[in-house]
């Protein structure tokens, strides 16, 4: 096998493509969790986004409607979660789990009529520039708009949380809803908004899978990526840049282990398959081992319900 520089570029490009849904869903969930809400329904919201995007694309033929429709579907289903946990003050963990089960079930029901229909080709940008620069060409060019958005998102999220007033409010609500409330912040409203935003990003992540990555609908097609996204948020200690690193390592090892198999590296395949999970956790734990920083970035009211009158 010849390892040339473009080959490496191709591998990096496929690693980045596989990291996109993880980055989107994790960054969305990060905002939700930073406001103090633990939504375990990421997998459910993702799969709802996947079927909504695919169904809308098939029915309307419009990719724009489909992408925004998938985000809207994520918003709608997360509204259920928001209503239950914020208005009816139900337990976050139980409600989130229910949301995942609900999402998987309802997506299968809607999806019955969309099985076996081929998807449409999603347009890519700067296709012509791919061969102009060695190595960087395939990495930088020839991807969908969602791809570029996903790689900008961690930086936008980081800026939003650190430098903007609304970001500060979100963090305040997540750290101490009581104090935030006393400052005149509408805790419930902020949390609603953060949950809905998380839903939109999960929906977009699902749409990426069913419309761009593997354009088709089949049941359970998210294949547990929602859970991995959730784990990334925790192991990155609520830091969007570390989410980006974690998602790249996870996607990278998944793809590199396939390459190692194809080259014929004699390492037990089961070990190679487990590698992405093990290494991602180890790396994230190691780069986030500063306990002071963890304390600073962990939303201290995470998963706790907030009553205004208690």
């Amino acid at each position, binding site marked *: *096998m010849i390892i040339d520089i473009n*080959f490496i570029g*191709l*591998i990096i490009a*496929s690693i980045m493509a*596989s990291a996109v*849904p993880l980055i989107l869903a994790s960054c969305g969930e990060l905002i939700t969790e930073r406001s103090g809400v633990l939504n375990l329904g990421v997998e459910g919201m993702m799969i709802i986004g996947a079927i909504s995007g695919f169904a809308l694309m098939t029915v309307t033929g419009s990719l724009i409607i489909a992408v925004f429709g998938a985000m809207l579907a994520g918003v709608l289903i997360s509204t259920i979660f928001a209503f239950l946990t914020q208005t009816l003050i139900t337990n976050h963990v139980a409600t989130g789990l229910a949301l995942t089960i609900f999402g998987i079930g309802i997506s*299968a029901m809607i*999806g*019955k009529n969309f*099985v*076996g229909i*081929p*998807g449409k080709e999603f347009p890519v940008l700067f296709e012509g520039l791919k061969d102009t620069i060695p190595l960087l060409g395939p990495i930088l060019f020839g991807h969908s708009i969602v791809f570029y958005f996903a790689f900008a998102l961690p930086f936008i999220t980081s800026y939003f949380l650190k430098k903007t007033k609304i970001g500060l409010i979100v963090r305040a609500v997540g750290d101490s809803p009581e104090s935030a409330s006393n400052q005149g912040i509408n805790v419930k409203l902020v949390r609603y908004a953060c949950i809905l935003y998380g839903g939109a990003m999960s929906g977009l992540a699902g749409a990426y*899978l069913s419309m761009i*990555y*593997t*354009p*088709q*609908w*089949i*049941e*359970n*097609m998210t*294949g547990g*990526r929602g859970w991995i996204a959730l784990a990334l948020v925790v192991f990155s200690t609520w830091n969007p840049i570390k989410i980006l690193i974690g998602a790249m390592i996870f996607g990278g090892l*998944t*793809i590199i282990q*396939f*390459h190692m*198999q*194809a*080259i*014929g590296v*004699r390492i*037990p*395949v*089961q070990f190679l*398959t487990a590698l992405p999970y093990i290494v991602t956790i180890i790396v994230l734990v190691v780069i986030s081992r500063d306990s002071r920083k963890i304390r600073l970035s962990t939303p201290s009211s995470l998963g706790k319900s907030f009553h205004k009158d208690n």
Partner: protein
Amino acid sequence: MHKFLIRSFVSSLVLLFTLTVAAVAKDVKAAFVYIGPTGDHGWTYQHDVGRKAVEAAGFKTTYVEGVPESADAERVLRQLANSGHDVIFTTSFGYMNPTNKVAKEFPNVKFEHATGYKREHPNVSTYAARFYEGRTILGTIAGTMTKSNVIGYVASFPIPEVIRGINSFTLAAQKVNPNIKTKIVWAFTWYDPGKEAEAAKALIDQGADVIAQHTDSTAIVQMAEKAGVYAFGQASDMDKFAPKAVLTSVENNWGPYYVDRVKAVANGTWSQKDTWHGIGDGMVVISDLDSQMPADLRSKVKKLQADLASGKVHSFTGPIYDQKGNLMVAEGKTADDGMLAGMMTYVKGVEGDIPK
């Protein structure tokens, strides 16, 4: 008005009663137990197509999808046997023990277990398809169509069914092109479009220009389409997902067998059987051959298909050697069903080791 209501109520009761009696007395009811969702467009989907054929033949059917291969399976089977089903098809290997266990408790219900080998009670039959015959055809096509001489193969789990497929594919490909290399990547899933696509991409990036698969989703043929290489459909005709990439598909066609067996139950002629059908009996179907294949290859494939069907050609005809060069099947002999059923070694020419 009241009278009318009462009358219609009574008459509908009578009607319902007659219908129920009729159903119990005459109709044969068949039940299907599925491992996955019917929406997988793969293994379970094809079984459900078979179920619909039974329905079209005038029988009542029910199905339960997503049944785990655990104690849950027993519970589902008991429930189905208790609720008046005459024949129950259990369509995954892992249902083998639950099927036999429940069959003992319901001697009047017929059980049909797919891909297993245990028939502990007279009311249990087993059935499977010789998919490896289809893979002989795919191997022949792949060996002829490849230009890079590297053929990629996305495999699921190291079980005899999959190993047999890899061997049969490689033997056929080597026969038409001794220079080919089969690169195998184990995805360790039957069904995860994202992972399957990544596995296929890795093989393509390493120079494979024909991709075969033993996983269920259409992600691989779509990836091949995007990359401009060839691929083959699995379980169902996947041509519409990747019209340029898909050269042909091997389809699982359970319908005729299902209709046959349900009819046998209705006629009272059902008896225990072990069925292993291939191309000849129509359980394995080769989809239309793509016009990108040269005409002489197409006619060669057609002939091979006919010879496999008639038994003139066997996928595993000696001499066959394993990777270490030990003789597996002697010259002029063919592998017997026992050897095929337990095949856990690669033939010569396949690269790498079988994951343990």
